[in-house]
């Protein structure tokens, strides 16, 4: 397929997945602000910190108020990663590959974009409903893609973009815990600490899975599920393994070996998750471990770009 088309499909899916995950970020905080004891101040800064756009935020807003953060992460067109910006980019990408994707896919991304844009203009309505609609809208898109797009090269580029973005965003959601402040150091392990962890689980649709698999709240088990699980579809490890399958489906090289620089890079990242456990994370430091992972993901993105999208002939 055309390199430009592969590039557009990859980014269309990254953007949609990003929009979904931002909706999940917002959801965590909205539910936290409901659950937390009344005397604790709402914490909105961690949301922006975790997206890495805090400098941009501070150049446009004063303090990290609920209104400012909601606006910045959801509707702000000057924030290239806001939900509306992501959906705009996804739609622009979709528009350049309209003849490749199914018309149902185009229609779904178009309608999702229009509904969020509409909300921007009206600026009223229930935010929780909005984020739920965005999640449902992106799920619907993924479902439509799964059942209407040929599972050939275009599908695998789509899947690659979607799953790498998901791995990155799950890492950031976990990292959010690092930025959440506890009232006192001895609050670790207390009700508030656990409330924050369960909010993170809920935001990744992992709460029920966790309860079934592990029962009581435990920090190590939560990391086990969100980072290392091979079966939970939003776990980092799972996402990378699936991305790897698609990457190899594109080249035809067997999984476990590599035929190009992108496969080599992803293989190295996966090896780390396959042969690490929670002890290694704790030893390394959670925030540092995740940070390191994100740097590697960026390298992988560059290798994908050079391998498929910008070959020099």
């Amino acid at each position: 397929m055309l390199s430009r088309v592969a590039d557009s499909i990859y980014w269309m899916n990254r953007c949609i997945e990003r929009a979904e995950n931002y909706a999940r970020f917002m959801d965590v905080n909205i539910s936290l602000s409901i659950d937390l004891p009344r005397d604790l101040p709402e914490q909105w800064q961690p949301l922006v910190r975790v997206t890495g756009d805090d400098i941009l935020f501070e150049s446009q807003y004063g303090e990290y108020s609920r209104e400012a953060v909601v606006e910045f992460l959801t509707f702000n067109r000057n924030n290239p990663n806001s939900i509306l910006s992501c959906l705009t980019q996804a739609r622009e990408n979709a528009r350049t590959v309209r003849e490749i994707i199914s018309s149902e896919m185009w229609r779904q991304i178009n309608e999702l974009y229009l509904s969020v844009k509409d909300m921007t203009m009206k600026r009223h309505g229930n935010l929780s409903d909005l984020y739920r609609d965005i999640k449902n809208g992106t799920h619907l898109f993924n479902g439509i893609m799964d059942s209407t797009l040929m599972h050939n090269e275009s599908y695998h580029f789509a899947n690659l973009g979607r799953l790498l973005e998901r791995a990155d965003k799950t890492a950031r959601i976990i990292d959010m815990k690092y930025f959440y402040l506890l009232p006192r150091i001895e609050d670790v392990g207390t009700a508030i600490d656990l409330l924050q962890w369960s909010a993170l689980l809920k935001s990744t649709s992992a709460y029920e899975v966790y309860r079934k698999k592990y029962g009581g709240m435990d920090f190590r088990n939560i990391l086990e599920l969100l980072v290392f699980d091979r079966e939970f579809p939003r776990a980092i490890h799972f996402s990378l393994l699936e991305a790897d399958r698609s990457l190899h489906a594109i080249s035809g090289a067997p999984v476990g070996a590599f035929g190009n620089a992108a496969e080599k890079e992803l293989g190295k990242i996966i090896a780390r998750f396959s042969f690490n456990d929670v002890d290694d994370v704790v030893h390394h430091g959670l925030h540092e471990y995740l940070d390191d992972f994100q740097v590697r993901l960026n390298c992988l993105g560059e290798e994908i770009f050079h391998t498929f999208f910008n070959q020099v002939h």
Partner: protein
Amino acid sequence: MKDLLQSYQSDGFYDEVFFPSGDVRPAYRSFINDLQAISLDELRAKQHAAERTYIARGITFNVYSEGEGVERTMPFDLLPRIVSAEEWSGIERGLIQRVRALDAFLDDVYGKKLVIKDKVVPQEIIESSSGYLKACEGIHPPRNRWVNISGIDLIRHSDGHYYVLEDNCRVPSGVSYVLENREIMKRVFPGVFERTHVCPVNTYPLRLLEMLEYLSDVPEPNVVVLTPGIYNSAYFEHSFLAQQMGVELVEGRDLVVDNGVCCMRTTRGLKQVDVIYRRVDDESLDPQVFRSDSLLGVPGLFDVYRKGRVVLANAPGTGVADDKVICAFVPDMIRYYLHEDPVLPNVPTYLCWRPQEREHVIANIEKMVVKESGQSGGYGMLVGSASTRAQQEDFIGKIRKDPRNYIAQPIMALSRVPTLIGNGLEGRHVDLRPFILFGKEPLVLSGGLTRVALCKGSLVVNSSQGGGSKDTWVLSNAEGSVDHA
């Protein structure tokens, strides 16, 4: 709708639906019968549903003059324009004849130039045309076909006859609206199509692909559609046609000339391209030959084309036939090349290049439509009756300065079709753009784009000037409509 139809006024114009007596023309009887049975509210709900569908399907074009990211849908009116089978067969004959003559003219004008030697079209008119490309002289495009895809704009005058307003032999657009309008109409009026035999239009992409493949010597050629990109106002159509044909949509940056052939960049390296349905202007095709600042084309493409290693459809150079001055000579070309009388007459045209006609135009400018010969899309024109004296003086100045570049036509009373406006039906002026494919033989799509000037009294139907569209039904039986008991 019964009372609305009864109170509808033709205002002395040729009305496509009603005889001057108020009786319904045969082609419309079945549809008007159905229309009478529904209420205004229902019709408006249908209209609303159709408009929503356009937005949801993203059938939009970009408007640049109004700031970033302004997307518009082409306004669509539900009440169709219906053409009887008998009337259509005349139109079809006229179009086929015209396209044959245009194709023969292009082959001649870039080849032996007999049309000049025999003094049918003056040499200075051809050589001064901005669409005439010296680089195309001596080129024989594949199968010797130049005008592979054309759209010819027709109007119906108050005398009831069709006239040719202009030819579009470069990159005519609008066919996607023909197909999409029909899809939406089928959804909005499902029952009506069961009672009225309307010729289908949905085979167009298949016919287009067959025609493009015919142009290549390669068995199973690799066909692509070349678009200027998503910021082009017709981008929707480019992607629509690529999708419907099942071929790649490429931009200039996807193509590269390698080893004397044209290739596209894929995730697995270069792949040869055999046929390019290009929706990029001649001047932007190849920066090495034409406009050097263009980023839309492919460096070296023209050379590959000249050597016959890639097909470009339409052939570069067809723009000379779109020149409004040269258009005036098409009836002569039909007589010259085909030895036939034209079936479809031109709208009478005065060439300001001829001193006598120029003075006539200037003296009667308030009764004329003056047009720049190289412009299209409703730009660069003056409707005498709807202009101020100052605007007229301005055009007179332009005509005197550059007479070659101006033509004038009497203001034609375009026919009208009832259109849903607010809470009622009002007559609005329409034209008709049928589409013709020309590979082995000319093939006319049984339908076309009916453009409607939605502003009251306006004669300008271009979408860039506030025009909308209607579905065009060509009936398939001789009676004009199917009787229903």
